[in-house]
């Protein structure tokens, strides 16, 4: 007779086999057998959050900064529904998460039992796949599959719903080495012909551009190295989406900055005027394309993506290459070197005019702002934070809004996995719990959440988690007392009717920090900013930094409503000349 294990024991054996070090969770009635088993597995550390949404975002931060899947454990009913926002966020931004939820005992499913909800039904559209475990004998196979599905192909969240009686029930556990490998759908479909075609297009192009996205980061650190090699080899300009920042050095001369709604003037104009657009691991998001009909009208378009359903979804492309970014770039550089050793030189000559044009756009200095010596400009605060932290390996998370865009514009990333932000879903309250997860994955590193005061209040309770586990995360709040991005749109599109976007009663963030048992710092004028930021970096405790910034500052440049890439709105001076038409107001 082989030894029999309970469902809870099998679950932990699976987690150990997957080398899971941390799980983020919150106990409750339907997961008690799992929590009871926790004490017997010292290699798996449980991080107790204060709200299940926090567990999900923490696991996202952990996954994005480490490349390993994040694991979440929640109870049935409200535990599961609270994690739905984080699952959807991970689904939109392709973050590998494995969420384990407790469920009421099998015989009570469908009876409106206490803390029951249809968890697999609710999470079906926001996970890659989910499972309701109906027999303890299936648990090991399902857990194995869950990790496989979450981490292969285009990564994403999965959920395993385990009824309480299954956690008690017993079954055999066979070590994985003996288990036959479960087949997962083939991911590499491109062939050499595609690569040859790509190189031919590259050879012919006189105004080429690389447009890279989160797929490069998801493909692993090797992809970023290969990308740098490819960009150097071709001499082409490169721009990146919000999620792709860091896969190419932000301070390199070939890098044009971020593109899209709040991207740089040179990046967006280059996208519009190019004759060859090579999309590597990005998805033509609507914040990137602006007006679809006038998106990059003169270019041949190439799309490299691991997910075939991303191709031709929004923008029709001339060449589709389905595959992992690492493999595709690897084949491309290899073929380039083999076929055409002089491409670098010949291309550089051919595209020198293109570079001259780009230099002209660059002289606009679209990220400039009018600084002040009386009041802290939010852009200035991010710039100072960058200058004072760039000499160490710093991880940045953000919330959602103006501060997020300023962080993306003014903080320059040199390595992948250093920038964690909610792009697709745009979840306010993402950054603080994400920082908790990042700090756990990188205990000795500096982790800063560049936050807005409105966003950060949505998940502020996780400061308590940071204090409990001695995670010295820094919450750098650009406090303008407004939901800044909402206020900006109201100013530009809704006749300055600032409906409900001003927060009347904000907490005293310094006192709040002290109440949580961490350090509060406040900066009110530009003279003291550097000193205070340095103080924040030096403290080995969690810090809430309340940085009072200009309330009226808007985030520029901006692709105004209903306009294509080449009609950007630059700073305050430019606005007078380019008023937004009423027709365009619809679009933002």
């Amino acid at each position, binding site marked *: 007779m082989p030894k029999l294990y309970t469902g809870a024991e099998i679950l932990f054996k699976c987690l150990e086999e997957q080398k899971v070090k941390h799980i983020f969770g919150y106990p409750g009635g339907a997961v008690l057998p799992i929590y009871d088993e926790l004490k017997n597995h010292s290699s798996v550390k449980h991080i107790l959050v204060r709200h299940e949404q926090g567990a999900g975002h923490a696991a996202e931060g952990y996954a994005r900064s480490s490349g390993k899947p994040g694991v979440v454990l929640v109870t049935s009913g409200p535990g599961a529904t609270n994690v739905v926002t984080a699952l959807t966020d991970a689904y939109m931004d392709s973050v590998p998460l494995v969420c384990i939820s407790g469920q009421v005992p099998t015989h009570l499913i469908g009876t409106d039992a206490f803390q029951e909800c249809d968890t697999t039904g609710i999470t079906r559209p926001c996970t890659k796949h989910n499972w309701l475990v109906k027999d303890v004998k299936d648990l090991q196979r399902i857990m194995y599959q869950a990790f496989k599905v979450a981490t292969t192909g285009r990564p994403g969240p999965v959920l395993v719903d385990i009824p309480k009686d299954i956690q008690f029930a017993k079954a055999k556990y066979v070590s994985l080495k003996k288990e036959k490998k479960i087949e997962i759908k083939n991911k590499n479909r491109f062939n050499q012909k595609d690569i040859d075609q790509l190189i031919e297009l590259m050879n012919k192009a006189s105004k080429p551009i690389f447009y890279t996205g989160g797929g490069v980061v998801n493909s692993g650190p090797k992809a970023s190295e290969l990308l740098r090699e490819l960009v150097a080899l071709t001499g082409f300009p490169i721009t990146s989406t919000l999620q792709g920042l860091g896969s190419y050095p932000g301070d390199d001369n070939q890098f044009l900055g971020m593109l899209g709604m709040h991207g740089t003037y040179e990046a967006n104009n280059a996208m519009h005027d190019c004759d060859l657009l090579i999309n590597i691991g990005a998805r033509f998001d*609507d914040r990137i394309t602006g007006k679809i009909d006038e998106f990059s009208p003169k270019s041949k378009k190439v799309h490299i993506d691991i997910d075939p*359903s991303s191709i031709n979804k929004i923008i029709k492309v001339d060449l589709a290459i389905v595959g992992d970014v690492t493999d595709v770039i690897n084949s491309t550089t290899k073929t380039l070197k083999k076929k055409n050793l002089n491409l670098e030189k010949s291309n550089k000559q051919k595209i020198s005019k293109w570079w001259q044009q780009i230099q002209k756009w660059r002289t606009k200095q679209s990220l400039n702002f009018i600084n002040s010596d009386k009041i802290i400009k939010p852009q200035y605060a991010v710039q100072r934070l960058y200058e004072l932290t760039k000499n160490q390996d710093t991880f940045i998370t953000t919330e959602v809004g103006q501060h997020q865009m300023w962080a993306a514009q003014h903080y320059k990333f040199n390595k992948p996995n250093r920038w964690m932000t909610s792009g697709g879903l745009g979840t306010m309250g993402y950054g603080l719990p994400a920082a908790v997860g990042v700090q756990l994955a990188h205990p000795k590193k500096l982790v800063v959440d560049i936050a807005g005061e409105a966003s950060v209040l949505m998940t502020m309770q996780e400061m308590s988690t940071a204090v409990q586990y001695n995670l010295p995360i820094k919450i750098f709040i650009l406090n303008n007392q407004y939901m800044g991005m909402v206020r900006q749109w109201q100013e530009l599109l809704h006749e300055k009717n600032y409906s409900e976007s001003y927060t009347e009663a904000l907490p005293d963030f310094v006192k709040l920090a002290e109440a949580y048992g961490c350090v509060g710092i406040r900066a009110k004028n530009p003279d003291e900013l550097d000193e205070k930021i340095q103080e924040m970096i030096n403290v080995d405790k969690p810090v809430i930094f309340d940085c009072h910034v200009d309330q009226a500052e808007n985030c520029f440049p901006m692709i105004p409503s*209903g306009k294509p890439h080449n009609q950007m709105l630059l700073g305050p001076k430019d606005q007078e000349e380019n008023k937004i038409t009423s027709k365009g107001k619809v*679009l933002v």
Partner: protein
Amino acid sequence: MAKSKSAYSIPSKIGKLETHILVVWVDNEASVLSRVVGLFSGRGYNIESLAVAEVDQKENLSRITIVTTGTPEVIKQIVLQLKKLVPVHKVANFKREDKNVIFKEMALFKIVGNSSKIKKTLNACKKFNPVILDQTNKSAVIQITAMRREIDKMTKNLKSHGLISVSRTGAVAMTRGAGIFN
């Protein structure tokens, strides 16, 4: 839409609508149907008809046949999304006009009336392999197999012959010739 101030673009040209028949081979397990159907309802698409049944007991495979109408881009997107689902094995996508594919539906008609009315009904259904499944002296249940539009037409025409109830299946499809879809 035109006057509302929203954060998103207004639709440009809307593509031409086409009717497609999708055939999906899936693992026969709980929730697989809602995963498939969710891709349609999540895009606000209506499914015109649906036929599902297990076709291979040993392999535990079911075959789903879906008739839907939409723009070619969205249908293509749904097909690609279907292929990504874990329990989906393969997906075939046919246009309704496709001459290489046979589409059939079955319908049951309940006719209430005297024997001459029933006879007239049988006559009208002659082309569609009518079978009498049940008969009394004032009623009959008749089964026919035909294309969707033919059944639509019959249900309209037979009203005068005493048709009081119609039950019909979704379309099932199969390619012509010796080959199978792979």
